């Protein structure tokens, strides 16, 4: 850290303390805020998503469709067939960039002879991507993606069509359960570089406030909710 940075930093922090008429936090006050950080308090619970797991999954599907995603509920063995069928139904090329994840690697893609898959991050020319999801939020039909070697972020954004495979057991009520799951998986001090939460396809209301799909991210979002 350079001297300039140091002095700019001190200028802002001291300015804050002067305005708040106190010095650096210490003693009990400091303990209280440290405690609040260490054990986060939840806000008011949104009742509509406090449901048994099966109903939670149904609520997720309902809200995802309200938000212009499409949903197919399938058995694990039918995932490759549903992907191929979806692409054919929508006149899309049978080619996709696929996240190199163990979950997706476990499906029998060989069963779909016409489907051409490439593992890795997205390129500008990719039309279709297939990824897993870290979680699904029932409250709003939102997908949660955690970046890592098994899930490049560009797959969520660049292609026109994004196909997501979500396991029923990964559907949770609200953000709070997602945060808990993230802390479990990655540890509190080591979040993945990017956590994308995605609610329906990309959209914009910037021309006359009318929502149009496909602004910069995918125009189509198809979610395969897989029984497990």
């Amino acid at each position: 850290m350079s001297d300039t940075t140091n002095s700019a930093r001190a200028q802002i922090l001291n300015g804050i303390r002067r305005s708040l008429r106190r010095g650096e936090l210490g003693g009990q006050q400091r303990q209280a805020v440290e405690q609040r950080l260490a054990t986060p308090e939840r806000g008011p619970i949104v009742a509509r998503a406090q449901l048994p797991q099966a109903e939670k999954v149904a609520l997720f599907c309902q809200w995802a469709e309200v938000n212009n995603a499409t949903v197919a509920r399938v058995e694990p063995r039918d995932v490759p067939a549903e992907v191929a069928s979806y692409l054919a139904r929508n006149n899309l090329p049978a080619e996709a960039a696929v996240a190199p994840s163990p979950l997706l690697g476990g499906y029998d893609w060989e069963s779909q002879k016409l489907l051409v898959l490439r593992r890795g991050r997205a390129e500008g020319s990719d039309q279709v991507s297939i990824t897993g999801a870290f979680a699904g939020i029932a409250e709003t039909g939102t997908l949660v993606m955690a970046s890592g070697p098994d899930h490049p972020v560009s797959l969520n954004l660049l292609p026109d069509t994004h196909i997501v495979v979500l396991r029923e057991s990964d559907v949770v009520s609200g953000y709070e359960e997602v945060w808990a799951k993230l802390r479990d998986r990655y540890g509190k001090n080591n979040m993945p570089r990017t956590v994308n939460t995605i609610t329906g396809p990309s959209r914009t209301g910037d021309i006359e406030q009318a929502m149009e799909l496909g602004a910069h991210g995918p125009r189509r979002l198809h979610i395969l909710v897989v029984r497990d």
Partner: protein
Amino acid sequence: MQSTAHDFKENVGTALADPNLQDSLAKLKVGFSERRRQAAERLPEFEALRDRARDIKNHALANLDFYLEEFERKVTALGGHVHWAPTAADARQIIGDLCKSAGARTVAKSKSMVAEEIALNEHLEGLGIAPIETDLGEYIIQLRHEPPSHIIAPAVHLTKDQVADTFLEHHAPLGFTKRLTERNDLVAEARYVLRQKFLEADVGLTGANFLVAETGSSMLVTNEGNADLSNTLPRMHIVLASIEKVIPTLEDAAVLLRVLARSATGQESSAYTTLNTGPRRDSDLDGPSQYHVVLLDNGRSSVLGTEMQDMLRCIRCGACMNHCPVYGAIGGHAYGWVYPGPIGAVLTPQLIGVDEAGDLPNASTFCGRCESVCPVRIPLPGLMRHWREREFERHLTPRAVRQGLALWSFLARRPKLYRRVTQVANRMLALFGRADGRYRKLPLAGGWTQFRDFPAPPAGGTFHAQWARHGGARVRP
């Protein structure tokens, strides 16, 4: 950007006479506010969430130094860098230096009001670096060399036809020579043009809706996905955020997110909410290799601990302007600087001075709709009143207003005299033409009657007279 807030009255005249603007504003009045009402009704917990959101921001502000240091510690531990900018000039310098160090020719920018506040684009252009606005609304106004007119819908003042003309003019050299008439075609053309720019950009610059101290994450909320392309494709990601954006934990973010989208556009959730934490990890397949956060103060720390502190709770949803009858009549440009509407009337005098922007807190009827919809319950009319008081104390209030107020306070403290004077005034008004029910012209009220008729008082005498006749009883609903 250069302020024209001192020309507020002139700006208002221009705005009221602009038919395209008036068409656009007519849509705004029914669009956002109706959708917000429906979204709030769908969520029984909405009011409790607003209370909690207010409390979270108050707590964060009361411990701002602590949370900023925590945030910095977490960012640094994961290989990111935090830069502290006391002033707008400091922030411009830091960002310019970072872009130069990356050898940047183009910067993909995601909409940031703080970047507007510090006039970042002009600075980058001066260094020979091209900033490319990627939010569709910002892109449109960048092509037109206009400032944003709304904090979440920067091109809300434009009609589809105006956008079509702008695209034809600027995209024709790229081979798009057909004038488009459908909104989805306009969106598709912008997507195509901007996609190339994303793939070429050296630096991605975004704002932040929240900074999470617990994890060292910056949090971004968008519908288009442009912020996410900006923070994923280029090799350097710069986050520009003002210091009051920091909140303690992810749980707090969950509360604020629930009120933000509903208050802004009436959506249950925006399409993309993204947490960025540090640069790409060794095993990642994409993402920027450098991650920088620039923390801007620009006068905010001096607002802490004053009666104006509540303005720092703002989460920039735009609900106050969507519900403001004054904004609805004049749009955002008339306010003359970056932040329009009720929050602009409160922030602008703070950020650029009450001498420059003194008219803005007076541009309110104090109807209270802004406060009633604010997700963090900022008492906006109360804050505007504070500014009016400060103007009065500093003798910035126009002489006619001061004399009028002095006369009124003289009368108001003498009830008998007050009654007699108002009786006479009431009779005079009746003489002038109660028959029409309105006045086309009225002495001392030319500012009003120049644009509209003044309603005549109903028959039956002054309020006091009518009150006495009704026995002074309270009318209960």
